[in-house]
């Protein structure tokens, strides 16, 4: 009797789960093909945002906000932004709601999605109404009204972009993430932090020495990195908000930190034993466990999203290659066989792929390989050195550093290697990009 009831409950739960699952999947597959979302870009029209008063300042804000909206949305790589010169409707004269939008004016120029907006500025308040329409179904997909302080349009635009991406793909996207990187602009390698799109870069370290390899904790609160501040490559763990931290300064090297997802723990490479090995340590810097035991270099750990497996570089068979260790069972398997120099593994947050940098004929390129060793794909080519891949929190984009323009800079591309572009321009050389998770402040 009790058993029957249990089975029935289990059945209900399963039905609810399936329904939930299919609902999300449906929302995603309807617009963006998850298997390769960048094969076909969705044509989107972002009309100029309407102003309530029509005064000059408000019009200027509206124009800037709609341009920002376009570039923010375009950054994802999912969309093709339609040229406003081709628009048949002007939002200033027509409406922003379904009842007064002539959808055929948008479908006839090829738009599948339409974004309308309205802006009201008064005293020190800013109000924005933003809507996303399916032009073929003549239907509102999502609409939101935001109220904030004057000048807060960037935050509002990003918030609505997250909304759009969530409706189209099922996850929140990248708009609340940040990027840490190394720049030589000051004359020394120091760590800087900017927004996901390269906006607002700020210097984070003032060590006046070599500082390298920033790594975010998965809550985005801590940054671990290596610095020669005290003359040796020591490991620093810093809390960004509290400005507190720890230094791990063992004899030899203290490098390549990698936080375990959703835990206050990280792996890093130390050589105090006389051999470069990977160890686990707490966020407070206490070494708890040795993860590799092998003569020769073992370094550069990167964790699977569930924290159970670790990809790393090992020279155990003569050349540096990527290996995967199952931390629970201790089993180690070799992942890469092509090429004689494969380093810097980065496990995708989706869990299915590993990006790494491989050297061939003196050139370093970014590769992506499935965790089972199949589907090897080269994402960059014939463009000097492309190093340090780092995934966006949703696994849709990859950051990397490249010397394609002479001096090293930070570039971004889709997970399939398309839409390669420079993230930001700054004096000096930029390397070692690290993408954080979304940080909700």
């Amino acid at each position: 009797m009790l058993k029957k009831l249990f089975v029935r409950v289990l059945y209900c739960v399963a039905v609810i789960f399936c329904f939930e699952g299919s609902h999300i999947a449906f929302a995603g597959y309807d617009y963006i093909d998850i298997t390769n979302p960048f094969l076909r870009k969705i044509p989107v029209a972002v009309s100029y945002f309407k102003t309530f008063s029509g005064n000059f300042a408000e019009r200027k804000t509206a124009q800037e906000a709609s341009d920002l909206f376009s570039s923010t949305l375009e950054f994802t790589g999912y969309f093709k932004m339609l040229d406003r010169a081709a628009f048949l409707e002007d939002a200033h004269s027509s409406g922003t709601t379904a009842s007064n939008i002539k959808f055929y004016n948008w479908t006839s120029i090829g738009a599948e999605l339409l974004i309308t907006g309205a802006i009201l500025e008064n005293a020190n308040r800013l109000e924005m109404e933003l809507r996303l329409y399916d032009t073929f179904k003549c239907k509102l997909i999502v609409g939101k009204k935001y109220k904030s302080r004057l000048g807060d349009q960037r935050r509002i635009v990003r918030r609505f972009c997250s909304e759009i991406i969530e409706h189209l793909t099922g996850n929140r996207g990248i708009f609340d993430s940040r990027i840490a990187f190394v720049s030589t602009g000051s004359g020394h390698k120091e760590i800087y932090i900017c927004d996901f799109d390269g906006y607002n870069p700020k210097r984070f370290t003032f060590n006046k020495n070599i500082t390298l390899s920033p790594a975010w904790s998965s809550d985005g609160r801590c940054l671990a990195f290596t610095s020669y501040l005290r003359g040796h490559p020591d490991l620093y763990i810093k809390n960004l908000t509290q400005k507190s931290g720890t230094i791990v300064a063992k004899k030899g090297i203290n490098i390549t930190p990698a936080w375990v997802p959703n835990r206050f723990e990280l792996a890093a490479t130390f050589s105090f034993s006389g051999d470069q090995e990977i160890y686990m340590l707490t966020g407070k810097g206490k070494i708890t466990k040795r993860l590799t035991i092998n003569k020769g270099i073992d370094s550069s750990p990167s964790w699977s999203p569930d924290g159970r497996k670790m990809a790393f570089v090992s020279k155990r068979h003569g050349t540096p290659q990527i290996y995967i260790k199952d931390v629970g069972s201790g089993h180690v398997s070799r992942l890469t066989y092509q090429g004689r120099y494969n380093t810097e593994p980065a496990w995708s947050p989706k869990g299915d792929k590993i990006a790494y940098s491989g050297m061939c004929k003196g050139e370093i390129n970014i590769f992506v390989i499935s965790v089972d060793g199949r589907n090897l794909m080269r994402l960059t080519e014939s463009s000097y050195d492309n190093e340090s891949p780092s995934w966006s929190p949703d696994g849709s984009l990859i950051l990397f550093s490249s010397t394609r323009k002479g001096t090293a800079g930070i570039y971004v591309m889709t997970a399939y290697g398309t839409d390669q572009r420079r993230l930001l321009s700054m004096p000096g050389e930029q390397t070692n990009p690290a993408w954080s998770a979304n940080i909700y402040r």
Partner: protein
Amino acid sequence: MQKRLLITLTFCFFVSVMLFTTACTKKVVSTAPVTDQTAEDSTAQQVEEIAGDLEESTISEADAAALAAEALAAEERAAQENAAREKFINEDIYFKFDSSVLSLSSQDTLKLKGIWMMQYSDVSVIIEGHCDERGTSEYNIALGDRRAESVKKFMVDIGIAQERLTTISYGEERPLFLEHNEDAWAKNRRVHFVLE
């Protein structure tokens, strides 16, 4: 010419001193008559003193020459020591790409460095491991560490106390040559010694 002048001057000095002492003695005799024995004694004593003076001046001359020779030798020795020190510091150990293996000639160089370190037992050194710009920066720090460690191990094996040897890896962060060619890369793949 100068030597002759010196001799003449010394002679004049000697003669005048002799004359002066004789006059003095005479004076002493005339004012206070003493026995021959005492007079003779005091004269002998004074002559001896003068002779002592002379001898001193000759010794000092010999001393100057010895000192000059010694200074020259010391200078030569210092120059030799300096050269050995410079050689110790400037002679780097080179490696093949992605390798921390010591070649036979590197081992010979390290043996000479070991001999030097045995001579100067108070010296401690930092062994710096470097890489060329190729490869990735993370891996190169590990590789530089390996290079420094393999040099350190060799030095310990030939009898240098390991407390005197500290290693540090700079990876590819401090290249000596900035060109992007094999020549520059070969010179950048090095272990460099720094005196602590």
